């Protein structure tokens, strides 16, 4: 008889994630990368992306119910990532959590979270109750950072293990020079606070420039940034590239003075930080940027700044005026990252154990 490629010694793995239609960010990229890695190791892999509602209301309840109703029995193992995809029923379900529904946890009743009113409070209770119940049915819970591990412990009293996500295309990160611009590559969205970087440019005294790149999820936010650049007459100091491809991103990073990443309460260090470090560039972040500080130590391999445009401008000038500092921080960033065990082999081994 002929050849048999059924891969009997390999397993069937269902990756399950949520997604916002037409939004492709770090989490989506990471799951696609994991799929590639599992396939390359001979496993059968399916990727299910469950649509997440556009509004946080009763549709959230429908979404939770949907996840509980879909059968993944054909799979030997399920790996799930986000709320409420990690509720799908399976006896051998491992969670690699990127974040919970943050709007009812650490962002609750804040500028980025749900407002505390009776309807939202009921929703919050449901989400937390579901997390408490269904997450505990998982075989293993990994998280992508100490930040997320801490939140899970604080709000749900659930233990987890940190499993750092590696880059798929680490080899494409390279170094060219410490140029004269700061590079901020990220989806343009309120959470990522590109506006703070733009605002800071009105206060810089050096000739440092800022280059923003990334697709916009929120057209009104992109419009706000453009208006800000026009209103403050920053056209010669700030460039908005919009979406660029991966190669262009890595090339820009290679020639940047340093990278900027200013998310609010980020779940993990973010791919931007990692790509910057592998390109021997330090990262400027903010004190309230959450998980970015996972890799980043102020004054050692990056700069952690008070979240204000003036404070940022001061650090931008410092890096421009003191290239040696930019280089030392960048070199240390590269060395620090290489000393950590962040690899796909580790990730696959742990997720499948």
């Amino acid at each position: 008889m002929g050849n048999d490629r059924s891969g009997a010694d390999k397993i069937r793995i269902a990756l399950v994630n949520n997604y916002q239609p037409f939004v492709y960010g770090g989490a989506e990229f990471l799951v696609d990368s994991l799929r590639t890695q599992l396939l390359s190791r001979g496993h059968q892999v399916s990727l299910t992306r469950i649509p997440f509602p556009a509004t946080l209301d009763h549709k959230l309840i429908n979404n939770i119910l949907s996840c509980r109703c879909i059968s993944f029995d054909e799979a030997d193992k399920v790996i799930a990532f986000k709320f409420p995809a990690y509720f799908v029923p399976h006896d051998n379900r491992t969670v690699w959590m990127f974040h919970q529904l943050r709007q009812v946890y650490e962002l609750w009743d804040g500028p980025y979270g749900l407002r505390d009113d009776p309807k939202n409070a009921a929703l919050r209770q449901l989400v937390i109750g579901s997390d408490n119940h269904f997450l505990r049915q998982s075989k293993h819970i990994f998280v992508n950072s100490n930040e997320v591990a801490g939140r899970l412990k604080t709000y749900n009293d659930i233990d987890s293990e940190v499993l750092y996500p590696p880059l798929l295309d680490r080899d494409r990160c390279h170094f060219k020079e410490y140029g004269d611009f700061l590079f901020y590559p990220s989806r343009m969205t309120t959470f990522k606070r590109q506006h703070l970087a733009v605002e800071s440019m009105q206060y810089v005294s050096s000739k440092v420039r800022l280059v923003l790149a990334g697709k916009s999820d929120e057209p009104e936010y992109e419009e706000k940034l453009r208006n800000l650049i026009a209103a403050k007459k920053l056209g010669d100091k700030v460039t908005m590239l919009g979406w660029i491809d991966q190669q262009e991103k890595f090339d820009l990073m290679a020639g940047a003075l340093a990278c900027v990443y200013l998310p609010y309460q980020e779940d993990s260090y973010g791919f931007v930080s990692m790509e910057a470090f592998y390109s021997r560039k330090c990262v400027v972040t903010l004190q309230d940027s959450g998980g970015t500080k996972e890799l980043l130590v102020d004054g050692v391999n990056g700069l952690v700044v008070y979240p204000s445009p003036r404070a940022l401008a001061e650090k931008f000038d410092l890096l421009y005026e003191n290239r040696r500092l930019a280089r030392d921080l960048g070199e240390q960033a590269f060395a620090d990252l290489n000393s950590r065990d962040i690899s796909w082999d580790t990730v696959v081994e742990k997720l499948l154990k």
Partner: protein
Amino acid sequence: MKIAVLRTGPLFAHDDAALYVAQLCSVLSEAGHSIESTSLPFSSAIADIVEQSVAYRLFDLTHGSDLCIAVGPFAHAFNHSNKRIWLLSQYSPVYELWDTCYGASSTRPNDVSTRDYVYAVDRAWLSEARLVCSGSQTIAQAVLNNLGTETQLLPPALPDQYRYATNEYEGFFVAAGPLLDTARISLLVDGFSRTVRPARLVIMGFVSSPSERDAAQQIVLESPKAEFITLEINPTYDRVFKHVSSALALVSVPYRCSTLDIFTVAASWSRKTVLTTIDSGELARLVDHQVDGYCVEANAVALAQAMDEISGDMQSAKRLGDRFGEKLNGMLPTWATIAQELTK
């Protein structure tokens, strides 16, 4: 436009619809649309049907996209204000396989209530759509007869990347597709085992579990002509399409299939004749015996006789293959037309 394309299908097994949807997304994208393609798992176990359909129903994509194209069993359940349905299959156990050894049964109360549920929700959810297209005449007829719903005929075409035409006729028959019970591999192998002329049989089968693979291997091993049979499990699609293009003929004997499977479409592109059986549903409807293919009684003797005829008269096989190719070429739309119809 922002277009969401939703597909339901098996998690790991081969599914023609996955290949069609990939091509559709590519064409829509080239036409300048933003595409978000989503596939959700579908389990065909009758016990899972109600829960699954409810799960799909609870998704609401209205706010994310201008238009939604749904493909696959119960994909029409999705909520969207501008929903287009492309029925490439239905839940066959309660439609074409109802009360057969492969489908649900009127003697089981649970099956009857599930069938009634499926008909009711199909009727309701299809009626919400702006457009309902059927992938075959058989589906269109079934929807009309069982649900009273008129549909537009829109069969899928062969995706561009699988269009191979070698003009070669090597000494083997090929059978390709998921090794489901309805594929009747044992009938096929039995038929081949009774042939007298020298030829080989290559079965390129897709399985989703080791038990399916083991069952197929057992059938082949028990054949007196096992040494002339090659069983390839889960081959790459490229490999299957290339084999189809250089085979003597494609042999396909599914029981009451509702659509033309992708490998038959590929055979027509490669101008290969098709051997099928009179109870093979849409396939039997399309193949005219001795006019553009072979459509014989569903038994091993008839299959063996047809296989011997093909391998003994290559010129005739070529002539019938050419005719089948011409027939389907005139019948199947282009992908540009498919994309246009589904988004108009």
